[in-house]
């Protein structure tokens, strides 16, 4: 505990002892183990390589408590729903808890389930049980252990073999009153063999809260998940989100992130490409200003041959914001003919902003194509002048160039509404 690799984090909510999970002794057991593990390890400090650039010290100082349902939750949920321009099925969560009244789950076909995780454990235990190990796993770091210890709910999206599911909106609202709160959403997304699903996540909120989310994505053979995240959390919030993708042969994980919110955000994707010929596409774009910290961390682990991974991460940093991209590509000995590409570009709008990028390649196969490129730059004078020479004022010109810089990230997103919402979020950032 006295290790310099740890930050002591005596959060009040730790004393609301990890609950037993009725009817799920495995879960109850996992929670107990995870809690004692977090108590022993505490939060990672910047001495831990994976957290080298993102300091959780400010988080550790806040007396987070567990959220309690409050009268304003319904209104907060409704406001968030109204802000999402979509009439798709939706799962709405307030402070990590499923808000059934605001959600529209529709009827899922035989072998599928769309709803809350707690609900799924009660209503569709046969669908969940094969994947229970993902919820009870004791792997992962201290934050993951904390999530396991305190998770109460999350989205459950289980798409049966060969089905093409209608897109689902996952709307998450943080709603803190006077006291800072912490919650630990745990989402389980299973797309069985040959099935296709689309999940669009929106995160918004008010007040000081900490969302410590874990999403497990399990892709069967030939399955496809389009997973888009628009993170517009409260500017006082800590938004830590880890996505674990476990992909079987010929599966596709097609992900994107657009982040403008949170005092400190970390979007972490761990892709375990276990089968042959898996495609993994990660796109990330964030805008940060003031003293915001925005971190995108990825690990793409090619375990089998013929896999493709493509990553394009772009950050726009103004004020004294700090942008981080850490991208690790692992190619195992069996993963011949892997084609892995990674690019990150940081655009600095001020002298006070800071960017750290750390690409890492660990290649243990000899017949592979791997490339990475990282740039940190400013807006081009030539481009600015070209726009000004057509009558466009410098502020509008900068806005156009920044929007264009980020729009490029979403060019390959097939869902029009996601591209439009990403563009609107960028516009919103400029307007705020």
């Amino acid at each position: 505990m006295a290790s310099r690799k740890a930050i002591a984090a005596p959060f009040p909510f730790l004393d609301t002892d990890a609950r037993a999970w009725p009817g799920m002794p495995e879960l109850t057991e996992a929670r107990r183990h995870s809690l004692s593990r977090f108590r022993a390890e505490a939060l990672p400090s910047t001495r831990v390589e994976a957290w080298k650039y993102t300091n959780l010290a400010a988080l550790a100082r806040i007396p987070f408590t567990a959220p309690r349902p409050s009268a304003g939750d319904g209104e907060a949920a409704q406001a968030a729903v109204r802000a999402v321009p979509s009439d798709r099925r939706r799962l709405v969560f307030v402070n990590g808890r499923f808000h059934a009244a605001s959600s529209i789950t529709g009827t899922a076909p035989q072998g599928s389930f769309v709803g809350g995780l707690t609900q799924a454990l009660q209503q569709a235990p046969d669908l969940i049980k094969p994947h229970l190990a993902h919820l009870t796993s004791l792997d992962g770091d201290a934050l993951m252990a904390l999530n396991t210890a305190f998770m109460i709910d999350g989205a459950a999206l289980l798409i049966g073999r060969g089905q093409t599911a209608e897109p689902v909106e996952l709307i998450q609202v943080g709603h803190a009153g006077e006291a800072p709160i912490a919650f630990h959403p745990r989402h389980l997304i299973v797309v069985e063999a040959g099935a296709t699903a689309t999940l669009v996540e929106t995160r918004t909120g008010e007040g000081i809260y900490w969302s410590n989310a874990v999403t497990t994505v399990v892709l069967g053979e030939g399955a496809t998940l389009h997973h888009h995240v628009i993170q517009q959390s409260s500017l006082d919030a800590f938004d830590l989100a880890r996505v674990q993708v476990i992909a079987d042969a010929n599966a596709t994980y097609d992900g994107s992130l657009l982040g403008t919110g949170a005092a400190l955000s970390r979007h972490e994707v761990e892709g375990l490409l276990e089968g042959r010929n898996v495609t993994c596409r990660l796109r990330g774009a964030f805008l940060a200003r003031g003293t915001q910290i925005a971190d995108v961390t990825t690990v793409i682990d090619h375990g089998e041959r013929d896999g493709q991974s493509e990553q394009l991460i772009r950050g726009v940093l103004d004020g004294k914001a700090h942008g981080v991209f850490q991208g690790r590509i692992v190619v195992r000995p069996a993963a011949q003919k892997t084609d892995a590409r990674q690019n990150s570009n940081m655009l600095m709008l001020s002298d006070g902003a800071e960017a750290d990028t750390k690409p890492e390649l660990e290649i243990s196969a000899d017949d592979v194509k791997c490339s990475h490129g990282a740039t940190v730059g400013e807006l081009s004078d030539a481009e600015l002048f070209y726009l000004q020479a057509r009558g466009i004022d410098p502020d509008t010109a900068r806005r156009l160039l920044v929007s264009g810089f980020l729009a490029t990230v979403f060019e390959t997103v097939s869902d029009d509404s996601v591209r439009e919402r990403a563009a609107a979020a960028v516009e919103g950032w400029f307007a705020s």
Partner: protein
Amino acid sequence: MLKIENLHATVDGKEVLKGLTLEIKAGEVHAIMGPNGSGKSTLSYVLAGRSGYEVTQGTVIYKGKDLLAMAPEERAREGVFLAFQYPVEIPGVAGTTFLKAAYNAIRKHRGEKELDAMQFLKLLREKQALVGMKDDMVRRAVNSGFSGGEKKRFEMLQMALLEPSLAILDETDSGLDIDALRVVSENINRLRKPDVAMLVITHYQRLLDLVVPDIVHVLAGGRIVKTGDKSLALELERTGYAGIGTQAA
């Protein structure tokens, strides 16, 4: 329309324009020819207001106003248009978005109502027809992946749309095939009106066969060393710059 007097300008601390004097009246087309490094592009950038091009002496009066005191976007809104020798690629910004922003900025400056998306696209289609640019080209990111000829056509589309009163064409003809050259010259000639002035910077006579200038200047060593009518361009074609005493500069 435009009156340049004793203009001195430096780039990276090096003096490139060394006392250039030139007057263009409304309705006139002037051609500027000159060897590489004579200051042709510097002149166009100074007139458009690019940073890094520092005027150390002299004046430029445009429509009775001090052009050098204006920001680049103000110059454009007042009707100055530079057709770039090397149009800039702007990744991720759709041509239509860019053109609408430019067009409406100029309309707003004139106190006119900005066009909505539908009205603008209708107008743009008409202008596209003039330069032979299809919808998919203008929807793409500005100049991204365009060929040299396509970039110049896009410059001409912008000029047709923005209808400037002073058009400066910086080697718009360079690197063009005969079809693109025809499009460029047609668009320049279409803009030729009693209330519009033009400055055509070129290396070659061939554009001037299609856009016949009223006055031809030879720029060398940062100054106008000779001025004449269209026959001067033909003389240059025969004798080269050496033959007309540019060495004296």
